[in-house]
């Protein structure tokens, strides 16, 4: 796996030229956007004055022109920066991915399909609003992997009762697991046990939405996770003592809630993120090593799962 020093060399030798070209494009785009923004602000001010003159200073007369102007400005930023975002992703993010592993392919517009997300069975709520981008696929060593950023939401009600709940937002990773198995095993962050201790375990065993509770012998692992599955023995075949320790290490390293599932010889890993991943900056410079480092570390976290979970060790009959 590439280190930060390697990244620094790569940044200085290969990436700077592209970043400079894109920085020029960003600046010209930004000045255009700011001009349009100023024009919109002037128009909004005029509208504001006219409205307050005719209707007096009351809430809608003040808020409407400002809200409409802000919305228009948002739409303009979105559409005018599309080309820049696309170019940034294919040139910069694409290059960083190839730098980490030349066997990986990058497609900024695709994502892990909804059916796969649902099939992973990590989240019980089926999302009805689903989007994603930054799809990466290929082979890391002997292991086939793919991952992308996802945002899955569940929308219910309509009109005033409409509400939208985020099912999952973050990185969704799938890899071919190194052992054969036919069972289903789901690993979720442990919340009940943290809150209720021993009673939490009892509540977990009553979870009717899930299969049987699988109690594992690693106390560290049990503190972080709860495991459900439909085969007690195979679940332990998958979750060998060393894999449990590796999952705990991965959880500590990322310091995020981790969701995993093992279904159909694949391992699914969901890592929630608040921020939008792999998006370029528009209002501040992109000639910044820390920015590139952030992309690199997010990508390395995903690609590194193969090493973290030791998926390239193919000593079992699956090759």
């Amino acid at each position, binding site marked *: 796996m590439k280190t930060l020093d390697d990244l620094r060399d790569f940044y200085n030798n290969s990436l700077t030229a592209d970043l400079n070209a894109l920085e020029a494009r960003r600046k010209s785009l930004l000045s255009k956007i700011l001009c349009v923004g100023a024009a919109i602000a002037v128009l909004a001010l005029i509208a504001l004055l006219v409205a307050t003159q005719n209707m007096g200073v009351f809430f809608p007369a003040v808020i409407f022109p400002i809200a409409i102007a802000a919305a228009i400005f948002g739409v303009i930023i979105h559409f005018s920066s599309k080309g820049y975002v696309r170019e940034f992703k294919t040139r910069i993010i694409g290059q960083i991915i190839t730098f980490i592993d030349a066997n990986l392919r990058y497609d900024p517009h695709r994502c892990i399909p909804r059916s796969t997300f649902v099939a992973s069975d990590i989240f019980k709520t089926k999302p009805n609003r689903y989007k994603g981008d930054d799809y990466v696929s290929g082979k890391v060593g002997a292991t086939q992997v793919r991952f992308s950023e996802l945002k899955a939401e569940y929308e219910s009600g309509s009109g005033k009762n409409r509400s939208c709940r985020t099912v999952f937002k973050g990185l969704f990773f799938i890899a071919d697991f190194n*052992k*054969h198995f036919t069972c289903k095993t789901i690993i979720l962050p442990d919340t009940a046990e943290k809150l209720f201790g021993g009673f939490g375990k009892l509540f977990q065993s009553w979870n009717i939405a899930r299969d049987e509770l*699988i*109690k*594992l*012998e690693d106390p560290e692992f049990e503190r972080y996770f709860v495991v459900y599955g439909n085969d*007690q*023995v*195979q*679940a*332990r*075949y998958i979750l*060998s*003592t*060393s894999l449990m320790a590796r999952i705990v290490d991965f959880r500590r390293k990322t310091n995020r809630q981790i969701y995993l599932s093992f279904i159909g010889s694949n391992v699914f890993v969901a890592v929630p993120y608040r921020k939008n991943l792999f998006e370029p900056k528009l209002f501040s410079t992109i000639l910044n090593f820390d920015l590139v480092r952030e992309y690199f570390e997010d990508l390395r976290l995903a690609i590194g799962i193969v090493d973290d979970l030791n998926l390239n*060790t193919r*000593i*079992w*009959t699956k*090759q």
Partner: protein
Amino acid sequence: MPYVIIILAVVLLIPVLIYNALIAKKNQVLNVFATIDVMLKKRYDLIPNLISTVKGYMQHERDLLTRITEMRAKALSDRTSDDDKVDLDGKVTKTLNNIMLAVENYPDLKASQNFLHLQRAMVEIEEQISAARRAYNASVTDYNNAVEMFPTNIIASMMNYKRRRFFEIPKEQRQNVDAGRAFNN
């Protein structure tokens, strides 16, 4: 009056629930033990393959091969009790490890496709057996807790349920499978 009936029903229901839970736990233990048995059989099925692959090369370790054949025959015989099977399993594991170590002395054998395939199958079955043992120990823990803890212990002693023994994991298997050592590439 209805309160009395409700209270009576609950008082009657609790022992029934405990009784059923105890039976479920006992059956879980038996069920997983059966799985270990299946896994052990799978491993015994591999032994003739192993012997036919290595015997052409291994001239000095004839007695190891004879010993393991005998153990296999004994383990598969119907007259062997469950406890003996557990004992035999430990011995078989030890002998198999010795054979695998002896292979180190025969580079041709070590590199042969047949042996490599067999080795993978062995590593896999060893890990499956270890998973089954862990599952067995987990269900025994569950069962033992129910047998010893209040209030389930009252019903358990009435049912004459006793603590069960854990499946001891042989010392040499307590460490994780080490890929580097297994293949020694």
